[in-house]
């Protein structure tokens, strides 16, 4: 594979905020972090010519292309230097198109069938498709202890709880592993290690019984990939190559790192901001490869979506049978009936009743989003060769908003149940996401991502983030709040007047849990500010005193000589 030469420059003027980076780094698949939680960025229908029927937008490819061109025109060169898009309708790709440049150093245009993007956690969908192939063949079972597949592997899951971890837990991120966020990202290709070694070296603790709460886990996806490899007595990369990429003719796709030089296509360069422009950056490598090392073109991802929308078939081949596809697309974990839940590997998107499933992806400087609408046989894939604050999901949001893939949200009707104010006060507080690290320097991300909930007027609820995003919610049922605009929902689970967990519809990868008072942002900010100021004053005082004493000594020493001179 050819790759345009890239700069090795590090850029300190990257306009992506540090908070955004911290929130997004290592969070393959959690690219939504760093943006306003749950805020759809789709513009109003009026701006794009109004909502259209699915048939209208997706059957007329010229109209679709014009629409997407319009959507991307606002973003290329400002949000991202390059993008690649694939939209399929059942077995047919109806739009595969590249936008902008693959590498700003050589001004190479993005070509949908030629330019390879790192798609990050969207690659997990390939991993979980491989798991379902094993289930279909009878070599894997979703409800069997994963340790039974690990045999003499050096990897094994500790028996911390009575219930074992199963492949169903791994595919729904409910295994209860402590979050590491970092899928062992390395900058040096020589540091790329075997999947098995990485799973041993980076093994997280089990901090929750399996099946209890969603907590996005790169480790879980890596482990699923390792189990696939062991079940078929091969490597994960080789298995996926022969059983998924070849049948789907995904000739430009690979999980290998670095991308082999003989791989077809040209790898886009990742970019960072430099003022108003973009600079190529060094690529990184993801050791937990089954969690996010996939590189692919939009055309290849179109083939992957076509198979998922065509009962597993692609051309003359079949990667899954129809029943298995149906199983994979059905719900496997319900965190709360009113919010987005988990299919196998996919999470639900938007209106939980719309049967839209998707997954986001990110490496350090690539981002992507894949959405399937199985009821409409529509698939959408968007990838950027940068990591802006507004992510590729925003493009998907606009396309969805312009179609009938889900119902247009209406103004929520306030509950008639009295006591809204009291309930709002009950749920008021600060909340932390379950998938954020609870140890190591990346734990700071948890603090930055806290969600503050407080009562607002008229029994409404107000949520804010450190970033300053404020949203208003209307209580439609006791302890259930709908966003004033959009499909977002907050669902609190309350026991004896205390909140156990908060589910946010737009945050399917984790749940919010109440933060103890002493771990709130104001406490941390206040203590850090006070201590740093105190240390600074102390040092300044000590230095001042030293100077004064030296000066005084010097004066005292000089005085007799002057007297003698006199």
């Amino acid at each position, binding site marked *: 594979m050819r790759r345009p030469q890239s700069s090795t420059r*590090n*850029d*300190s003027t*990257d306009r992506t905020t*540090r908070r955004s*980076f*911290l929130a997004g*780094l*290592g969070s393959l698949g959690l690219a939504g972090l760093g943006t306003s939680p749950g805020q759809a960025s789709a513009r109003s229908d009026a701006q794009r010519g109004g909502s259209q029927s699915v048939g209208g937008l997706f059957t007329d490819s010229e109209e679709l292309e014009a629409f997407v061109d319009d959507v991307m025109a606002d973003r290329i060169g400002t949000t991202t230097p390059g993008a690649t898009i694939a939209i399929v309708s059942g077995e047919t790709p109806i739009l595969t198109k590249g936008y902008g440049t693959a590498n700003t150093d050589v001004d190479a245009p993005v070509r949908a069938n030629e330019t390879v993007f790192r798609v990050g956690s969207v690659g997990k969908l390939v991993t979980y498709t491989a798991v379902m192939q094993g289930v279909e063949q009878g070599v894997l079972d979703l409800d069997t202890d994963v340790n039974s597949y690990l045999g003499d592997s050096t990897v094994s899951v500790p028996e911390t709880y009575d219930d074992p971890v199963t492949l169903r837990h791994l595919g729904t991120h409910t295994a209860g592993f402590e979050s590491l966020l*970092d899928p062992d*990202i*390395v*900058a*040096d290709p020589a540091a790329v290690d075997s999947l098995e070694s990485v799973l041993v070296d980076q093994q997280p603790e089990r901090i929750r019984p399996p099946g209890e709460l969603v907590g996005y886990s790169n480790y879980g996806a890596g482990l699923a990939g390792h189990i696939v490899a062991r079940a078929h007595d091969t490597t994960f990369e080789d298995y996926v190559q022969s059983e998924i990429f070849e049948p789907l003719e995904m000739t430009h796709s690979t999980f290998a790192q670095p991308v082999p030089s003989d791989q077809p296509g040209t790898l886009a360069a990742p970019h960072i901001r430099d003022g108003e422009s973009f600079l190529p950056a060094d690529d*990184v490598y993801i050791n937990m490869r089954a969690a996010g090392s996939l590189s692919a073109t939009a055309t290849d991802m179109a083939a992957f979506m076509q198979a998922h929308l065509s009962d597993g078939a692609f051309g003359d081949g079949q990667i899954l049978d129809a029943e298995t596809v149906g199983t994979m697309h059905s719900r496997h974990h319900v965190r709360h009936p009113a919010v987005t839940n988990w299919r196998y590997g996919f999470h639900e998107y938007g209106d939980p009743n719309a049967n839209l499933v998707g997954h986001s992806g990110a490496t*350090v400087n690539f981002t992507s989003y894949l959405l399937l609408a199985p009821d409409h046989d529509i698939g959408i894939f968007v990838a950027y060769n940068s990591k802006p604050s507004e992510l590729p999901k925003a493009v998907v949001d606009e396309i969805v908003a312009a179609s009938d893939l889900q119902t247009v949200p209406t103004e929520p009707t306030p509950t008639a149940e009295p006591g809204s104010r009291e309930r709002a006060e009950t749920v008021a507080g600060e909340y932390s996401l379950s998938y954020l*690290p*609870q*140890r*190591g*320097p*990346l*734990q*700071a991300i948890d*603090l930055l991502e806290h969600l503050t909930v407080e009562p607002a007027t008229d029994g409404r609820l107000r949520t804010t983030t450190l970033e300053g995003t404020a949203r208003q919610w209307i209580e439609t049922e006791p302890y259930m709040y709908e966003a004033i605009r959009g499909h977002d929902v907050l669902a609190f689970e309350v026991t004896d007047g205390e909140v156990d967990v908060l589910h946010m519809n737009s945050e399917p990868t984790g749940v919010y849990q109440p933060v103890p008072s002493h*771990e709130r942002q104001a406490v*941390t900010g206040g*203590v*850090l500010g*006070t*201590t*740093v100021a*105190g*240390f*600074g004053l*102390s*040092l300044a005082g*000590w230095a001042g005193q030293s100077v004064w004493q030296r000066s005084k000594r010097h004066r005292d020493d000089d005085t*007799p*000589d002057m007297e*003698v001179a006199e």
Partner: protein
Amino acid sequence: MTEQPHTQQQTGPSSEHDAHSRLGHGVKHRLTSLPWLTRAAGIVLSGVSLGFVVLFVFVLETEGDLTLLTRPLSMQVTLSLPFLVAALTLVTTAGSLLAWRYRYWSLATRIHQTILALLGLAFSWQLWTLGFLTP
């Protein structure tokens, strides 16, 4: 006083030996002096704490946020400082307790040293909360 310049100008082997001896004795005296060590720990605690904050921001700004994941030497050094802060906090706190017990220094100095210990404890608590004191 008039003899002092003359004394300082002595350069013979004997005077050099005396100077070295005095210096060695002074250093030894300080390193075995709990009051001096406690004061030094408080000052170093302040410096290392501020140094950590400055260095952390500096490394992120100059070498990029990715260093949090890839951990080059500069970030490894930076992330080792919180452990030094915690150790210095323990020394400063223990020293402050001894200072009140054995009435080291003036009252103002003891209060200052106690404040430094409290700041160290609070700072270390937040370093722990933010994950800088865990592997």
